[in-house]
């Protein structure tokens, strides 16, 4: 990726801004999906958490994280090559008003990206993660790992310079935030799930894991439709900002996004129909989202047929992986974020390597994936492990029993609607 920022025409600037204003719909979609896939006695806490996490991540990113995303950066030299690993920008968004239009749009993109990335682990910790802990996780992500990764990928960091320094294609390519947003969110979800542990009763001592289905499939599926609009905005704006695509390339990028999601949901529909006899609504939603996530990496690069292929593969992998994580690996991930965001994003990034025309692009993508798994995942786990010592992630047993709504908020999401008698009322 070329770290030199191009000058946007007025038309491209206006279009990019308008596209970025669609991106919050993706955040709203993911928030609805997170809420719908949790239990009804935690619904208000889940949706309030989504709202607060967006706010916390934006504030922390403005105060701390934005300082490390761009500029000349901290560089060390190894084997005669510069390794730019951390950005340096003015404190507290200083000079933003006079910054070039491209830089302002890039910052807006990054603000929206951290807001979405922070929601992904929140969905995985549903029904047992405390709201304070969720805010702390979002703050840590916005202050440390996210800006570092953004600098590596988009801010002229070492991954973006792989092409210039080592002749690997155009450097690590991530047009719509598959690495800095989706994979980061997915591996943060894995760390949160590992640290918080499974929901009470999810994995009994004997027998298979207990199914704890989401409480509102309508929220989940409507969230998927909202997410499509937001993702279109994100992928098109990313193509302009990070891939430097001309305006004429945007319709294909939009078609690729739609085709990837469509291929994924049809594939998931078929897989779940084949495996369970009937299609599974929540897994189909996961498949749709995995197609969108995979398109984040490659929609601006591949052809429509390739995009459909990428989506179909994502849609096949996702339901199988959700099942594997739960049944074989004892990982309780209510929103399926690890399969959808981490694995879907990694698959999209790999697909860029397969289909991009540049020589050496596959190797650049593999090095990027290696950095995400080998550096970012252990770092995120370490940070969250330390954070858990000060702000315990998991609610106490009583809170989990009565539900997060009553325990943390003092009132439920559906106060006059008794769904069933359960142990908390006995």
């Amino acid at each position, binding site marked *: 990726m070329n770290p030199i920022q191009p000058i946007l025409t007025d038309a491209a600037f206006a279009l990019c801004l308008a596209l970025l204003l669609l991106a919050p719909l993706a955040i709203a979609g993911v928030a609805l999906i997170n809420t719908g896939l949790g239990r009804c006695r935690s619904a208000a806490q889940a949706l309030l958490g989504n709202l607060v996490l967006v706010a916390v991540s934006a504030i922390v990113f403005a105060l701390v994280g934005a300082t490390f995303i761009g500029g000349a950066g901290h560089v060390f030299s*190894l084997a005669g090559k510069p390794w730019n690993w951390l950005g340096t920008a003015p404190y507290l968004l200083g000079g933003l008003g006079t910054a070039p239009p491209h830089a302002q749009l890039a910052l807006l993109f990054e603000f929206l990206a951290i807001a979405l990335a922070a929601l992904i682990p929140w969905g995985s910790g549903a029904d047992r993660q405390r709201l304070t802990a969720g805010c702390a996780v979002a703050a840590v992500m916005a202050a440390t790992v996210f800006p570092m990764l953004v600098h590596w990928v988009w801010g002229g960091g070492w991954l973006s310079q792989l092409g210039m320094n*080592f002749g690997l294609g155009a450097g690590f390519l991530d047009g719509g935030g598959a690495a800095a947003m989706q994979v980061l969110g997915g591996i943060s979800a894995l760390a949160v799930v*590992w640290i918080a542990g499974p929901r009470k009763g999810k994995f009994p001592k004997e027998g298979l894991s207990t199914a704890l289905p989401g409480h509102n499939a309508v929220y989940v599926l409507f969230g998927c439709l909202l997410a499509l609009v937001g993702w279109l905005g994100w992928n098109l704006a990313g193509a302009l900002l990070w891939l430097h695509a001309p305006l004429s390339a945007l319709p294909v990028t939009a078609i690729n996004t739609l085709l990837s999601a469509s291929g994924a949901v049809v594939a998931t529909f078929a897989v779940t129909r084949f495996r369970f006899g009937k299609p599974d609504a929540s897994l189909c939603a996961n498949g749709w989202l995995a197609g969108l996530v995979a398109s984040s990496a490659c929609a601006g690069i591949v052809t429509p047929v390739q995009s459909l292929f990428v989506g179909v593969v994502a849609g096949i992998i996702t339901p199988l992986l959700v099942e594997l994580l739960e049944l074989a690996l004892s990982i309780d991930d209510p929103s399926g974020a690890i399969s959808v965001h981490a694995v879907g994003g990694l698959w999209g990034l790999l697909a860029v390597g397969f289909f991009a025309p540049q020589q050496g692009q596959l190797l650049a993508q593999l090095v990027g*994936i290696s950095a995400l*798994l*080998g550096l970012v*995942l*252990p770092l995120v786990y370490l940070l969250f492990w330390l954070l858990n010592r000060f702000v315990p992630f998991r609610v106490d047993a009583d809170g989990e029993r009565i539900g997060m709504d009553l325990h943390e908020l003092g009132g439920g999401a559906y106060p006059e609607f008794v769904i069933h008698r359960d142990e908390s009322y006995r």
Partner: protein
Amino acid sequence: MRYSFVKALPPIAPVTPKGTQMKYAGMLVMPAGCFLSIAALVLFADAASRTAFVLCGLGVEALGLVVAVRGHMEARGEGLR
């Protein structure tokens, strides 16, 4: 037996359970794989050697991840016992 009292001592419990130790070990292995991938770029000029070493690096990371996942499952089992 001359030192039979040794047997009477209770076994020393590890500071952290075995599963948790495995998880930490897996997490430590993963950066090693990444450094292997990065070293490939610095050490080799031809694409074939670089690709082979980067794939080896990814393999090491995958092994680390497998160990961490196994550690998670062990730790869960220890928690249940």
